[in-house]
């Protein structure tokens, strides 16, 4: 009996902690939005220079690895599409699956996972270290709101830069797939691109852009939530960093499935 009670007690505690964390995340988001709009009136603006620096760090600095992944994904999709459609003699329609899956699914998802690993962990580690070193306390006692100074620029940067990376990934993935497919089917590159543009609708591209913006927000909030809740020194920093990456990737994959279902039904 005691073991059963202990089990339910543990579940209850974890559930309450989960609600607490998401409540904290929601309050961070609300506070960031408020500071973006009213900060200037209270002489505490969200600085463009900080936001720009974060954009460079999260977006531009990630371009080489992001584009390498995008090109590989495009090639992989092309190889698999030609193989699977070849079983039915439908290789000529490979461009449909590639174009739609890249813009609607693969670019936002892969860029989300990449940035969760690269920047989500960096956000959690940075905030955790700052919390442990009392740098966040120092900001507070100086009269500088840490959400306005640290969190809002990161969230803006991720919400803006992840769709930019996803757009670039669309171009690179479709481009690399086009090269492979056109060479394999001895089709001209121009006609492959023309067919792709015919099949793609603006809605498909928007679907990917909005989704990647949402993933950016998730990565930022999860990183900040974990970083701010650090306890226990250097070991704690490692723990929240790992936790942040795992949670962000899980949240991205689950929300991707939910958004995918909702948008097609």
């Amino acid at each position, binding site marked *: 009996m005691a073991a059963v009670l202990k089990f339910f007690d543990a579940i209850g505690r974890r559930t309450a902690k989960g609600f607490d964390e998401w409540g904290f995340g929601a309050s961070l988001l609300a506070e960031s939005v408020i500071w973006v709009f009213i900060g200037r009136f209270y002489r505490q603006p969200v600085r463009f220079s900080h936001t720009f620096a974060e954009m460079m760090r999260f977006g531009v600095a990630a371009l080489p690895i992001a584009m390498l992944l995008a090109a590989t994904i495009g090639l992989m999709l092309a190889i698999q599409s030609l193989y699977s459609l070849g079983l039915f003699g439908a290789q000529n329609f490979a461009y449909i699956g590639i174009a739609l899956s890249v813009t609607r699914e693969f670019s936002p998802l892969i860029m989300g996972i990449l940035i969760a690993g690269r920047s989500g962990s960096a956000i959690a580690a940075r905030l955790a270290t700052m919390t442990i070193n009392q*740098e966040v306390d*120092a900001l507070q*006692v*100086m*009269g500088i709101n840490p959400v306005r100074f640290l969190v809002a620029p990161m969230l803006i940067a991720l919400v803006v830069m992840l769709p930019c990376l996803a757009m670039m990934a669309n171009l690179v993935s479709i481009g690399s797939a086009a090269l492979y497919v056109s060479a394999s089917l001895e089709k001209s590159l121009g006609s492959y691109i023309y067919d792709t543009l015919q099949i793609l609708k603006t809605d498909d591209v928007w679907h990917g852009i909005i989704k990647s913006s949402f993933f950016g927000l998730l990565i930022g909030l999860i990183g900040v939530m974990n970083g701010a809740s650090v306890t226990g020194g250097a070991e704690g920093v490692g723990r929240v960093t790992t936790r942040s990456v795992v949670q962000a990737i899980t949240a991205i994959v689950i929300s991707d499935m939910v958004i995918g279902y909702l948008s097609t039904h």
Partner: protein
Amino acid sequence: MALAAPEPETFWKPSVEELASRPIVIEVDHLDWSFGARQVLFDVTMKVHEGEIMVIMGGSGSGKTTLLRHLVGLMPPAPGKVKLLGQDIGKLKALEKLELRRKIGVAFQFGALFSSMSVAENVKLPLRELAHLDEKTMDIMARLKLEVVNMSGFGGLMPAELSGGMVKRASIARAIVMDPKLVFLDEPSSGLDPIVSSALDDLILRLREAMGISVVVVTHDVESAFKIGDRITVLDRGHILACERPEQIRVNPNERVQNLIHRRSEHVEVDPEEYLRRLAGD
């Protein structure tokens, strides 16, 4: 030929009457605080006057840092009341609290300098974020404050390149850059050798003389407390044992006060059964 020892610098200290006639800048009223079931502050009441150096002294785990966090508004003063510059910080809205904090400066125990910024950028940060001055004026002000703490020429270094004493001094420069009315220093001499520690004490006294600020120093360094404090508050297990002038503290009849200033450890009887019960979490 023997070298003559340099004359120690002497500093002015206000008299009891002079201090009492000045306005109160910090008022703590019946403050209690608990971490879960463990109470760490018991009915703490104290006042600090304008221009006074108040030292809060106590051993490890006495509640000094918790009290300091309440004084600077990092913890909500409930139950109890903390007034800074006449404003009850428990009743202030978030934006009003930010405004009040512009008038105080805090130097943390380990400096809390931003590791990604140079020393000068650290000192300029409050000016950049709160004062909205042009770059040249900020440079001049940061340089002046670094000179005050004997750190001129080190502005370009990163915090990781500084010694422990320099980190503390840079942290003090950042705390005073907005010309605050109140400065809080958390363990300024911890981890420093006696010479650097003594120089830091002189710096605190010089700052009070030059800027007329009120200073609250949290420390467990007895020598430093007696050197700089106009009054010393002795905190022990969350209780204030005494709040008096240094010369009165020296002759205070309380055994725990005497133990603290003479660095005598208390003999504590450990009951093995009780200890094992606590270990098992019963």
